[in-house]
């Protein structure tokens, strides 16, 4: 059997005495879409932060495509092929839409300081080439965004910001994409469009795996192949959306913990 793309084994993240994540284990196959649900504070974003190296895992092991992730700096993990978006979108607000995506291509370009100063022609060509690739990428994700490529990211509408974050993450050429509540702040129509966009991306890059944190149950029902439920930092269920939804303790977790969302 081919090895899994991502293997997390008993991963814990603790702050002081507080466990934000406790012994979470799961695997993710290539090309798979895994949904992660759970009430607020269940540790969903913490899991993403542990995988991307922003938080250090206090215990447990994470392997990605055969490489140990624990203790690796954030930018190295991006180089390995893990990209993410943020719950509250963190774009480079004072830069153009296009530049946001060009920055995403950082790991896929090479110019060093001396090259930039002494071999300007080459450096320039590389950057122009990156800009072209970024523009193409923008067009695949959304023509609408492409047309706004010379606007400042801060001027975009909420839904477009979300899309741009996804485009920026895709620019790093990830094998695994982590989406943290991509639909938050979107209305039903926009959410439907988002699902469509993600589908398109998956079709373009058939080997791309996705982990997606969501509160919008219509999206969770539709997109992921499999769903994992977290509560108080522990995994309480895993399986198809239908099977997970039927579980009593999942319903309890939501009724007990969820004050805000359904």
């Amino acid at each position, binding site marked *: 059997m081919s090895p899994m793309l991502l293997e997390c084994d008993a991963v814990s993240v603790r702050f002081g005495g507080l466990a934000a994540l406790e012994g979470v284990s799961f695997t993710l196959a290539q090309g798979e879409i895994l949904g992660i649900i759970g009430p607020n504070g269940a540790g969903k974003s913490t899991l993403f932060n542990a995988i991307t190296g922003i938080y250090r895992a206090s215990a447990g092991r994470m392997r990605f495509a055969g490489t140990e992730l624990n203790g690796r700096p954030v*930018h190295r993990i991006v180089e390995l092929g893990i990209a993410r978006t943020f719950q509250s979108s963190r774009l480079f607000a004072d830069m153009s839409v296009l530049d946001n995506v*060009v920055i995403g291509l*950082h790991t896929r370009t090479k*110019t060093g300081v001396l090259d930039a100063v002494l071999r300007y022609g080459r450096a320039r060509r590389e*950057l*122009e080439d990156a800009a072209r690739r970024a*523009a193409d990428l923008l067009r695949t994700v959304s023509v609408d965004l492409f047309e706004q*490529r010379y606007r*400042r990211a801060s001027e975009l509408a909420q839904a477009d910001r979300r899309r741009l974050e996804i485009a920026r993450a895709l620019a790093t050429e990830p094998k695994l994409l982590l989406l943290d509540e991509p639909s938050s702040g979107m209305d039903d129509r926009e959410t439907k469009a988002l699902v469509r966009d993600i589908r398109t991306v998956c079709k373009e890059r058939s080997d791309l795996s996705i982990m997606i944190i969501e509160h919008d149950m219509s999206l969770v029902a539709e997109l992921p192949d499999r769903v994992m439920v977290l509560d108080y930092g522990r995994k309480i269920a895993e399986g198809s959306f239908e099977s997970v939804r039927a579980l009593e303790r999942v319903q309890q977790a939501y009724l007990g913990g969820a004050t805000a969302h359904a």
Partner: protein
Amino acid sequence: MAMRDTSEERASPGLLGPGLFVILLEALLALLLFLFLTSESWIVTVGLLAAAGAGFLWLQRNPEIETRITDWFAQARLVAIVVGGALAVAFPFFLGGDSYVLHLLIIAELYAVLALALNFQLGSANIPNFATGASYGIGAYASALLAIHFGIGFWGGLVASAMVATFFGFVLGVPSMRTRESYLALVTIAFGVVVHQVINNVTWTGGPNGLVGIPAPTLFGHSFAEPIEVLGFRLPSQANFYYTALALIGLSIVVARRLHHSRIGLAWNALRTDELAARCQGINVTWYKVLAFAVDAFMAAFAGTIYAFYIGYISPDNFTFLVSVTIMTMVIVGGMDNIFGVILGAFLLTVLPEKFRVFSDYRLLLYGVIVIGMLMVRPEGLFPKRLRRYGGHG
């Protein structure tokens, strides 16, 4: 090069329109600068200032004209560079041997280089570095010591001092890996104080008395202590340093532009806005911060060397914390991450206080008030940073 879309209406006047416009505008600016520097009457000085202020306000009110002008400069870039360069080279010839004005221009040039150096940090990457003055001093002392004790000349000292300062830039950059904002500012301030106190107390730097007897540079047998004689014109000896500093500005602009329009400039801009998000795009934030420190120190050292050989005497008080703050003021006033703006800021803030001698004692107070005022009213500076444009998909 970074051009806007050459749509029909913009392209139609051909190169002639923008070219002519650029020549006229640059000539006008040079003329105004000349009048400003040489006029003895305060009425002319104040009048020119008022005119400049009004012109700026007008541009401010009519952003489309500002865009048009920048477009023309972009289209007639070569013309702009050649004419601008020629004007700068010719400028000393019109000063009629006025060595004081020349001195002022040299100091302004050196500050322009320092401001461009700091701009990599403050402007591009938002790193509050209060130690540029220290790097400037390290460069000056390194080259002066090499010249006095080892007989290494100006040109060798230029390179060697840049190496030394860059090394210290890296050293300063190391604590910056783990610190940000307030803490980083403290590290740089502390570094500046440490450098100043060490220079002030060690015997081999001459302590508070400084170093004297730094020999004048020579180039192809021509001593920089001698006047320049060309085509029957005789320029005071300061002109040697005017041209050296001018060449350094040219070099700095090239380096600044190239870094800005590269992956490196983009990475700096990314960590300016959001360090964590930058990290998540695979940017080695630590390295890019340290790099910004090194580049800043490298260029500041060049300026320091020229200063040491120009004045021939340096003391710790030339390189205090207040020098760093002055440089920072210039960057903030001119416009962070805007090369032209930063140079303009340096010239304005060097020349203005000198022109108003009465107020020269109030210079620092003025700087402080200007910085606060600018940050409150127009934080992006006189000339705000602009978005990058790309050729292929522009």
